[in-house]
C-alpha cells in the first residue's frame, strides 16, 4: 500500500515522463514497427493497385537486386576501413595529447573541430580540394611527383569509395581521440612506475600495461562506430551519391533509392528491416561478449 505522498509522487513522475514518452512512441516505436510491417507488404506509391500481403517477396527482390551484393560489400569495406582508420588516428593523437605538452587544451580543441562541422560542409570542402581541375590536393600531388596528372578521385570506379572513406576518417577520428584520451587518463600512474622500476621499457609498458587498460573503452567506441558508420547516409550522398556506377553505394543509399526514387516503400522497408536485423545481431553478440567477460 502506497502512502498518500508516494501516490502523489507517482502521479507527478508519470506526468513528467508523458511528453517524452509520447515522442518516443509516436515517432520512434511506431515507425519502427511500421518498417517491419511494411517489409511484408506490397507498397509502391507509383503503383497503388499493387498492394496487400507480400510474404517474403520484398526480401527476395531486394536480395536478388543487381547491386545488392555490391552495396553489401561496399558497406563492409566502408565500415571496416573507416573505423580502423579512425581508431589508428584516434589512438596516436590521444597518446600525443596525453603527454605533458604546452598548449594541450588548444591542440585538443583544434582536433575536435572536424567533428562539429556539418557533414555536408566537410564533404563539399574536401570535394573542392580533390577536384581534378584546380583542386589543391591534385596540384600538390602532381608537383610532388606522386601522380603524373590530376586524378578524378571521386569519379573513378576504383577510388570513389576509398576517397569518401578517407574524408570520413578525417571527420570522425576526433571522437576516438577524446574517448581514448579519457581512457588513457584513467590508466594508473603507479602501475606504470612499478613496471618501470621492474625494468620495462617504454614500448613494453605501452603494449602490456597501457593498451590492455584501454580495451573496454576501445571495444565500446568501436562497436558504436561500426553502427554509426554502417548506417551513415550523408557522407556518401553528399560526395558521390553512391556513384560512379554504384561503386560507392552502401545499403543506406540503396534504402534511399528504393524509397525516394522508385517509391517502392515495401522493398525499402525490407532492406531497412534487414539492416535492423544485422544491428540487433550485433547488439546481442556484443552483449553476450560483454557479460561473459564481466563474469570471467
Amino acid at each position, binding site marked *: 500500500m502506497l502512502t498518500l505522498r508516494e501516490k502523489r509522487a507517482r502521479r507527478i513522475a508519470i506526468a513528467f515522463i508523458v511528453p517524452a514518452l509520447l515522442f518516443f512512441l509516436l*515517432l520512434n516505436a511506431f515507425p*519502427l514497427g511500421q518498417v517491419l510491417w511494411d517489409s511484408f507488404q506490397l507498397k509502391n506509391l507509383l503503383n497503388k493497385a499493387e498492394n496487400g500481403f507480400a510474404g517474403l517477396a520484398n526480401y527476395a527482390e531486394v536480395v536478388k537486386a543487381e547491386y545488392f551484393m555490391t552495396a553489401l560489400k561496399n558497406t563492409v569495406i566502408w565500415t571496416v576501413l573507416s573505423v580502423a582508420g579512425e581508431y589508428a588516428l584516434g589512438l596516436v593523437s590521444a597518446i600525443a595529447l596525453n603527454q605533458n*605538452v604546452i598548449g594541450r587544451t588548444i591542440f585538443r580543441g583544434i*582536433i575536435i573541430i572536424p567533428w562539429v562541422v*556539418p557533414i555536408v560542409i566537410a564533404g563539399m*570542402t574536401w570535394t573542392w*580540394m580533390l577536384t581534378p581541375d584546380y583542386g589543391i590536393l591534385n596540384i600538390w600531388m602532381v608537383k610532388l611527383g606522386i601522380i603524373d596528372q590530376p586524378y578524378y578521385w571521386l569519379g573513378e570506379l576504383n577510388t570513389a569509395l576509398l576517397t569518401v572513406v578517407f574524408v570520413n576518417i578525417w571527420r570522425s577520428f576526433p571522437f576516438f581521440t577524446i574517448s581514448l584520451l579519457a581512457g588513457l587518463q584513467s590508466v594508473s600512474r603507479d602501475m606504470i612506475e612499478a613496471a618501470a622500476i621492474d625494468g620495462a621499457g617504454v614500448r613494453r609498458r605501452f603494449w602490456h600495461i597501457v593498451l590492455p587498460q584501454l580495451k573496454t573503452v576501445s571495444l565500446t567506441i568501436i562497436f558504436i562506430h561500426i553502427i554509426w558508420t554502417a548506417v551513415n547516409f550523408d557522407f556518401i*550522398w553528399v560526395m558521390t551519391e553512391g556513384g560512379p556506377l554504384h561503386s560507392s553505394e552502401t545499403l543506406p543509399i540503396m534504402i534511399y533509392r528504393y524509397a525516394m526514387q522508385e517509391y517502392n*516503400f515495401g522493398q525499402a522497408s525490407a532492406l531497412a528491416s534487414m539492416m535492423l536485423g544485422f544491428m540487433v545481431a550485433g547488439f546481442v553478440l556484443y552483449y553476450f561478449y560483454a557479460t561473459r567477460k564481466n563474469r570471467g
Partner: protein
Amino acid sequence: MLISRRKQRILTIATYLILAGFTLYCLMPFLWMFVTSIKPDDQIRTLNPSFLVKQITFGHFDNVLNNSAFLTFFKNSLFIASVTTVAALLISIFAGYALSRFVRFKGVKLFGVAMMLSQMIPGVLLLIPLYLVMKNVSLINTYASLILAYTTFTVPLCTFMMKGFFDTIPYEMEESAEIDGASRVGIIFRILLPVSLPSLVSTSLFAFLNAWNEFMFGFVFINDESHRTLTPGVSLFKGLYQTDWGSMMAASVLSVLPIVLIFIFLQRFLVEGMTAGAVKG
C-alpha cells in the same frame, strides 16, 4: 624518472611533431575554404594556388547572400534549430528530473530503458515510415515535420544529460522548499535550474548543434525552396553553381559561423558530452 633524459627529449619532439601534423590535418580544409571564399576567380582557377590572398574580394559572399536563397535557408535552419532546442529542453527537463528522482517507480525505470534504446535506432531506418507519417498528416514541406523529427532524436540525449545534472544536486535542497509549500514544477524552475544553469546552456547547445547539422531528414522532408534548411540547401548549390567554388566556399564559411561561435562557448562541455556519447555521428 621513468625514462632517460635523452629518450625523453626525443619523445617530446616527436609528440610536438605529431600534434603539429594533426593541427595541419584538421585545420587545412577550413583554411582552404576560407581562403577560396575571399579570392577572385582567376586566383581560384589557377595551377599555382596559394594560401596568400593578393587581392581580397567579397564578391562571392555578395553573390551567395544576394543572388541565392541562402539567407532563407539560414533563417529556416535558425528557426527550426531554435524551436527544437526549446522543445527538447522543456521535455527533457521534466523527463530528466523523473529519471533522477523517481527511478524507484517501475514505469520510470522502463521509460529509462526506452530512452536508451531509442538513442540507438539509426535515423535512416526510420526515414521511410517517418516520411509516410508526415505525408499522411500533410506535414511534408513544413517546419513542423523537421521540428518533430529533430526533437524526437534529441530528447533522449538531453534527458540523460539533464538527469546527470540533477543527480549531482542534493535532495535536501528540494525538501526544505517542499515543506515551505512549493510545487514540484516551482522547485524545478526556481531552485534546481538556476543552480544548473551552465549545464542547461550546454545541453541546449548540443540540441542546437544536432538540429543545425542534420542533413538527411531536411533533404527528404522538404522539397520547396522557401522551407529548405541550410545543409540540404548548401548541398544543392553544388548542382546550381557547377564549378563556382568561390561561392560554394563562401556559403560554407557562412554556415560554419554559428558553429564556431557555439564551439568557443562549448569547448569545455563538449569533451564531457562527447565522452558520454552525446553527439551522434
